[in-house]
Each structure stands twice: as C-alpha cells, then as structure tokens.
C-alpha cells in the first residue's frame, strides 16, 4: 500500500491534477504489493489420462 507523503507547495498555474500527485519525501514508503499468482506449471501423471489401459 502506497502511503501519502507531505505535499509540496505548488504554483497557482499548476494543473489541478498536481493536487492528486503523491510526492516522494523522506517518509518510508511500503512497496509491498499483492500480485495474482499464475499457476504456470502443472504436473499430471503420464498414467493420468483416461483411455489407455
């Protein structure tokens, strides 16, 4: 989860989106992120196919 740091003062001419920017400061930012696991390898026994005796 990204923590908001202290906002720096901005010029009046700045686009309002600047107000939404998260600015890095000396604060410690926790960069742990949850990502979806992909199951990329699946093992099946060579005997595990129906139709072979």
């Amino acid at each position: 989860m990204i923590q908001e740091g202290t906002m720096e003062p901005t010029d009046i001419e700045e686009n309002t989106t600047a107000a939404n920017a998260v600015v890095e400061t000396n604060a410690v930012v926790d960069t742990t992120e949850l990502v979806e696991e992909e199951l990329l390898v699946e093992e099946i026994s060579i005997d595990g196919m129906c139709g072979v005796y």
Partner: protein
Amino acid sequence: MTDLQIPPTPAPDNLVLSPVKQSGLGDQMKAGLDAPICLTWELTYACNLQCVHCLSSSGRRDPRELSTAEAEAVIDELERMQVFYINIGGGEPTIRPDFWHLVEYAVDHGVGVKFSTNGSQIDAAVAEKLAGMDYVDVQISIDGADADTNDAVRGEGSFATAVRAMEHLHDAGFGEFKISVVMTRHNIPQVDEFKAMADKYDAQLRLTRFRPSGRGADSWHELHPTDQQQRDLYHWLLGRDDVLTGDSFFHLSALGEALPGLNLCGAGRVVCLIDPLGDVYACPFVLHDEFLAGSVRDTGGFQKVWQESDLFRELREPQSAGACASCGHFDACQGGCMAAKFFTGIPLDGPDPECVLGHGEPLVAAADQALRPVGQDHSRPTPVKFLGRK
C-alpha cells in the same frame, strides 16, 4: 514547477503472491491436441488366454493385421508427432513374432513403451533382457489376489503364470513394473492384498475400471461393483498417490475430491487406440464402428486421422450436459464414460450407468440389453462362461 513523481515499480522481492483461480487444464485438453500425449496400440487380436471380460474380445489372430513394415511406419509417424509413450497391448502382444523388434524400434525412435501382458512369455531370460532395456515398462494383468479369484476370470493356471513373471522381473532387478487389475464385485474386497503383492515385488499397483466393453458386456451386470463397493474403492484410493488408476474412475469425482489425473474422458482428445489392423478408435473401450475414426492405412496415415477425422473433431467440440444439466455434479464427473453408456445401451448424453447418485441405474434397467451394440469380436469359437469362484 513540481514534477509529478510516480512511485517506483516494486522490485520482485516485494511482491506477495495471492492465489488466483484459473481455468482448469481439463478445459484446454477437451479441445484436443495436435498429437496424442500417449496412446494404446493393440498389436494383435491373438491371445493364449480367453479372459471372461476381455475388453477387446481377443482370441483369434486377424489375417489383416499390420505387417512389420506397416507397424514401423506407424512408429515413424508417432516419432514425428512426438507421442511420448505408447501402451502396447492386444490380445497378448508378446506372441506376435515381431514383438521385440517393434519394441526396440519404438524406443530407438524416441517413443517410450509400456506393454500389457499376461506374463506367459516372461521367463528369467526375458526378465533379464527387460531389466537391461531403457524406456520400456511392463504391466502384468491379474484380476484376483489369489488363484481362485483370478483364474475364475482369466483361466486355470493364469494366476501362477502371472506371479512367476512378477518373480522373474523382481529377481532381475527390473524395478517398478506395474500390476494392473480390473476392479469387479469379486476383487474389490482384495485391494489391500493387491497392494501387498505390489509391495512384495517392488511393483506399482494399478487399479482400473471394469467397463462393459468387448466380452465385458456379457458379464457386466454380474461383475460390476455395487454402489457401496464403488464408494469403498474411492475412499481407499483417496490419498494413495502411489496407486495408479489410468484416470479410469473420473466418474467417481462426484463423490468429493477428485482422484489424481486429468479427470476427463481422454478419448480422441489426448489419447486414442490403434488396433491390430491399423484401425484408429477413440479408445480401447469402444472397438465399435460408431467410434472408428479411420485407418493408418488411409492416405495421410495416423496423423491425418488424429488431426482431421470427423469423429475426433466431434469429440473435441464442447459436449453438452444433456440429461445431466440439472445435476450439480456434472462439472466434476462430466457425465462419466461414453463406453460404459454405449455398451449398456443408454444415451451418450445421459448419466453414466454407475453414476454415484444412482441416475444411471433406471436407464440401464430400462434399456433392452438384446438391442445393445456389439463391437469387434475376435473371440475363439469356444464359448466362455464366467465360472464363479470355487
């Protein structure tokens, strides 16, 4: 002007995996592959036994059998298609004069071989030879844990013959050969003894489903497991990852956790059968014109049949649940085995005759058994009856 600063991309060491459900492997397999993963090849219909429930109704050699050269051509194709592994059966494959040549030809061409046998040709010398061969596996067939139970199905002396073969293989240091059993009403109570036998000979136990195929149709009603025995077998198999099943009990998945394996009908999708005449069927349990895809003798050979036959194209289409649509277990059991349905005379889009919820029973009872389909028959003229236990 203040720059917009975007937080740095987390380094891989900061990533925590959260499990996600993804589409099953089974769904991809049902659509079929460009080549089988493995297949059964019945080399001959000739057999020196006359097992009561033989799935291929074997006994008499068919004069139209593939020649050695034709068989080699099939192996060449399997090599090109990268089929990893074939199960050679029959009849009794070891009584074909070119059996050893073909086994060696296959392994020399990158195709692993397991052959299924009654053990009658495996003496000490043959066992030594097998122990020295790479990429060859042996499967000994028995149907009872003692001579009484076994010989009632496979004929007098067949148990002793099989056990002798096991002893030779064990003494020769072959390693883990397979002991394969077809589970019936009479041998399900012997599962622990089968396991002990496999352990004794350092073999791997394989339990498979009894289907009403071939001569099996004649005795299926008397020999197939009871409902309770099916449940007992399922529970015995759960957690025993060292016992193979050939995925033949996927119809029991409706009972709970699926047994190991792809858990689906592989016929025409990931496996198929080549018969002694070069005819290609969906699987060994449906040796009937209805499930005949073509012949390796046709132009284009085996590859063309596998990739382009009408039958296999049909099987690779999504199958509808049919009469099973309203049952919550269809996803698990897929409606069961088409061979079991076909040869008990019930509709292919209906429940399995041994449906664990009992949906198949009334349909079996209602089907006119005199009208049920009869497949290829190479039985010897002498009629064989189930002898019952002594």
